[in-house]
């Protein structure tokens, strides 16, 4: 289905001091004569403010979408651009159907005109034909409850009457797309309830609504999803190996990084990579150094062989995977962390979700893992090839069965997406686990659930098949029952993520832990 609103690479910049700078013709002339054609563009560039920075999303027919973000994040600017009030600096919007903006209830009202006159005038300004206004007139008046003051100039209205009338006019507009900016919650409590009821009715009518509000309760109540006008960063976190576990490992890793990053070009998401190189062999050049030089968006943590040896020698075998991932989680500066693997190609449905739906905090996003046949050359793989059905050899369905029921371990690996703060609240993966048969991702998901986080399945990922990917370890050890409810949420010590170790900053992108 064709989207009703399609926003591509939309940006808007304002010149911060332009108003002060340009009010007087004299100053403008002075500036022109003084600097002439030699006026320095750089000096002026400094005063630019990007209200919207390269945002892209689409909204389908009949969807109710909330626009969220802190003050000044460009929410209103976005609506103004969609309404045609102000042009974008770059980018494009494609709209299907008639659009109406409710940027401010009563924007078209004139204080000297009577209620009746204002209903007609305001309707005309918002593009409602006179016949249509006449047809809806009784309903508008009835909804606002100002029958007795219909022929009184609006300036004599109480502020409550004023907003009630204003909301009534705008709420009765006929249009396919409705843009609403903080227009709810007007009047007294009873009228607010009436407004919300009216909004629900509009939503049921199947119109497409874009809804900006600080009232998060209203947003989550009315909207099916949210989108953010702010760019956010997503750190693809993985472990790098430098042994001969796999031939051409580095090339392989490079191609998946390139592939996955390309899926995010031109979106609101700043896709970064965090790589932990565990136990680098002394004789080979460090993997991290090569990759850091190649990818400016990649940061790497190299963990010295001594730590590996120490952990292996401890009485209970500690799983180094957990320590290495935790080192990346604990030091992450990104907004969201995606714990994944070097053999993962993100599915386009997953990426579309990330691009178009606002990611919530305290919600663990997961994806179904599709194993695909190993092919010789992944370096130039295109999504169509990766996601081509004949190449698929099996699917891990991570939603079923539930994590906390037998066989426990059938989780979907290599895709755990959570906001960084929540990751840090969990203190990453359990570093006390000594039993490799536990699926680490399941364990993480369980702790997230036990901490009261939501969980959501958002798409697919494609995993280069290696032999044991579909082995159900729960079946392999039928007699053993794991109590997943015990010690959940687990708590790592303060020293989690190799905190107590010696951290050395080799370069902006590279840390060395020993």
């Amino acid at each position, binding site marked *: 289905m064709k989207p009703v609103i399609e926003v591509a690479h939309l940006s808007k910049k304002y010149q911060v001091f332009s108003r002060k700078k340009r009010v007087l013709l004299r100053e403008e002339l002075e500036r022109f004569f003084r600097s002439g054609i030699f006026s320095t563009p750089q000096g002026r560039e400094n005063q630019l403010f990007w209200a919207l920075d390269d945002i892209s999303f689409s909204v389908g027919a009949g969807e109710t979408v909330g626009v969220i973000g802190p003050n000044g994040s460009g929410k209103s600017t976005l609506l103004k651009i969609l309404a045609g*009030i102000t042009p974008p600096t770059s980018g494009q919007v494609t709209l299907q159907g008639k659009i109406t903006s409710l940027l401010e209830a009563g924007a078209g009202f004139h204080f000297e005109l009577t209620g009746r006159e204002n209903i007609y005038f305001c309707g005309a300004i918002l593009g409602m034909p006179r016949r249509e206004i006449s047809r809806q007139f009784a309903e508008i008046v009835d909804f606002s409850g100002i029958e007795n003051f219909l022929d009184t100039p609006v300036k004599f209205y109480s502020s409550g009457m004023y907003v009630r009338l204003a909301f009534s006019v705008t709420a009765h507009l006929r249009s396919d797309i409705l843009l609403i900016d903080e227009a709810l919650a007007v009047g007294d409590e009873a009228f607010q309830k009436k407004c919300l009821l009216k909004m629900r009715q509009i939503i049921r009518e199947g119109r497409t609504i874009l809804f900006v509000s600080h009232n998060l309760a209203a947003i989550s109540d009315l909207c099916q999803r949210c989108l953010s006008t702010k760019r956010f960063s997503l750190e693809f976190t993985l472990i790098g190996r430098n042994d001969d576990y796999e031939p051409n490992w580095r090339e392989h890793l490079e191609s998946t990084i390139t592939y996955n990053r390309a899926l995010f070009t031109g979106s609101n998401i700043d896709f970064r990579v965090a790589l932990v190189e565990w136990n680098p062999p002394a004789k080979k050049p460090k993997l991290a150094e090569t990759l850091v030089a190649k990818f400016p968006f990649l940061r790497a943590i190299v963990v010295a062989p001594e730590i590996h040896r120490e952990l292996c020698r401890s009485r209970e075998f500690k799983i180094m995977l957990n320590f290495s991932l935790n080192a990346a989680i604990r030091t992450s500066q990104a907004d969201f962390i995606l714990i994944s693997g070097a053999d993962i190609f993100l599915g386009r449905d997953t990426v579309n979700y990330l691009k178009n739906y606002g990611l919530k905090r305290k919600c663990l996003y997961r994806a179904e893992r599709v194993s695909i046949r190993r092919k010789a050359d992944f370096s130039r793989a295109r999504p169509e090839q990766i996601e081509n059905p004949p190449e698929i050899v099996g699917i891990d369905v991570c939603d079923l069965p539930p994590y906390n029921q037998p066989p426990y371990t059938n989780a979907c690996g290599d895709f755990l997406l959570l906001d960084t703060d929540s990751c840090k609240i969990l203190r990453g993966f359990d570093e006390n686990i000594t039993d490799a048969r536990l699926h680490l991702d399941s364990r993480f998901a369980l702790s997230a659930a036990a901490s009261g986080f939501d969980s959501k399945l958002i798409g697919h990922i494609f995993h280069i098949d290696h032999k044991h990917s579909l082995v159900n370890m729960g079946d392999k050890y039928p007699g053993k029952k794991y109590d997943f409810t015990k010690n959940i949420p687990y708590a790592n010590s303060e020293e989690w993520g190799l905190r107590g170790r010696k951290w050395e900053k080799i370069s902006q992108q590279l840390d060395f832990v020993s």
Partner: protein
Amino acid sequence: MAKIISQNQTSLPKVLQELWNQRELFYFLVWRDIALRYKQTIVGVVWVVLQPVAMTIVFTFLFGNIAKIPTGSIPYPLFVYPGLMFWNFFTRAVSASSESIVANRNLIEKVYFPRLVLPLAATIVNLVDFLVSFLVFTLLLVYFQFSPNLMGFLFLPLALVVLLIFTAGLGAFLASLNVFYRDIRFIIPFALQILLFLTPIVYPANLVGNKYTFFLKFNPLAAIIESAREAFFGSTFSYWPGFGLAALVSLVFFGLGIGVFLKSEKYFADIV
């Protein structure tokens, strides 16, 4: 039908299409201006009549009786009145339309509609006043028992159309300029005062020395007023070339004014 919003969004056919689609808004704006103008006044619409009549009396006293400007066989009030009719239309329309965008900033910032309707409506609404003052003109003719040429009544609508084109162009231009430079609102009253005396309203054009008539030719107001006066009171009508030039100049003003307006209108909401 898909609508595309991008950086360069205005094209003339699109604007015309939009204006046509929103013609009701145009009626409403004109209606609102009329409805608002005489609210909370005691004499109401009488002001429309009072103003040109008062001006005619003052000018007749100053320029007819004191300065004794020669107007031939025509009584001075009758001589000065048609010019004032046009002049009042022009000054009111220019003042109102140049302020139209700034005065409606709350609309500009909050709602989308073709911005051009604002200055155009502010210009057109003055036709109502023109009509009323024209009725007063016919009463004056009856009072002075003066019978003008029929040609005058036929020519009047044509002159009015040219004046409308000139005024609309100038109004749109000043309206957009006023958004960026508020100096405009100080310049306009002052410029209009000067223009009143540079235009042959209170005096006939032939009073101006040959050296300066050249400048009058490029003042569409001068040509419109002179030709209308000739159409009403002259023995022959020989003003077509001058009037044609005025029409041409008006069209140029119109094109430039609307062009500048359409070029700059997308910045209105950000700057106004």
